[in-house]
């Protein structure tokens, strides 16, 4: 079993489960869910995360604000971040990359697309 630990951040429980199920199928069993940026920052404190997958539009704290906090943290700034969002406009993608997102997946996505992006940063 892989020791890789992944944080999945999305306000939609459906999307969190789809992402978790896909991760499991490709060998990443250890993923932790968070409902928004605030919840994600709290979950990160447990430590040991190798990758963050985050939505953009969420209540409480959105994905972009969350990524800024991660990149501003000495403890978490080196963790790769993939944004998974419905924000398909190029201007939004550029903005996300500027804020420190390492890669970007537009919803809707196939399991194959998620696998290809995730395995760029980690292996099972």
């Amino acid at each position, binding site marked *: 079993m892989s020791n890789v630990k992944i944080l999945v951040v999305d306000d939609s429980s459906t999307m969190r489960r789809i992402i978790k199920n896909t991760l499991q199928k490709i060998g990443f069993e250890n993923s932790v869910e968070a409902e928004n940026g605030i919840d994600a920052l709290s979950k990160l404190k447990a430590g040991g995360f190798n990758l963050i997958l985050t939505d953009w539009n969420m209540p409480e704290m959105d994905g972009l604000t969350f990524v800024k906090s991660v990149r501003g943290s000495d403890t978490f700034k080196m963790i790769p971040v993939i944004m998974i969002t419905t924000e398909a406009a190029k201007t939004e993608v550029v903005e996300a990359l500027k804020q420190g997102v390492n890669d970007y997946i*537009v919803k809707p996505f196939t399991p194959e697309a998620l696998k290809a992006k995730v395995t760029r940063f980690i292996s099972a």
Partner: protein
Amino acid sequence: MNVDMINSFINATVNALTTMAMLTVTRGSPYIKTTDENEFNRDISAIIGMAGDANGWVAFCLQRQLAVKIAANMLGEEKQEIDADVRDAVGEIVNMIAGGAKGELTQRGFSFKIALPTVVIGDNHELSRVKDFPYIVIPFATEEGNFTVEVCLKTNKI
């Protein structure tokens, strides 16, 4: 609102439902809604607001059976009735419809923000139009039932 705009919503709808819910989607002919009466009897609607060069909302309206099937297909689980998962799933689909349309429309020079989705449940509920805004209904068919995507949107660009 012009044909290009409507096509952006059609493309995004087909993409969302074929990719995430594994459904075959066939589009009918869009029409302008002029009365408060529904031609399509709906049980559940997911609505999302837009603000900027395009103002208003887009809604994904469907019947119970199709909503349950969409959630079941998305999650890979058996589902029998509308529950929190079904509400969340249809909300996520309208999110993808709005986001996908925004992606296409941004390339045509539109700039706008999309809000978080709201889900409404009720036998043949009505959606309130924004006064004087064009209201277009796009009917679709799937092997699991019919649905509409309804767009009530005013733009400050041609």
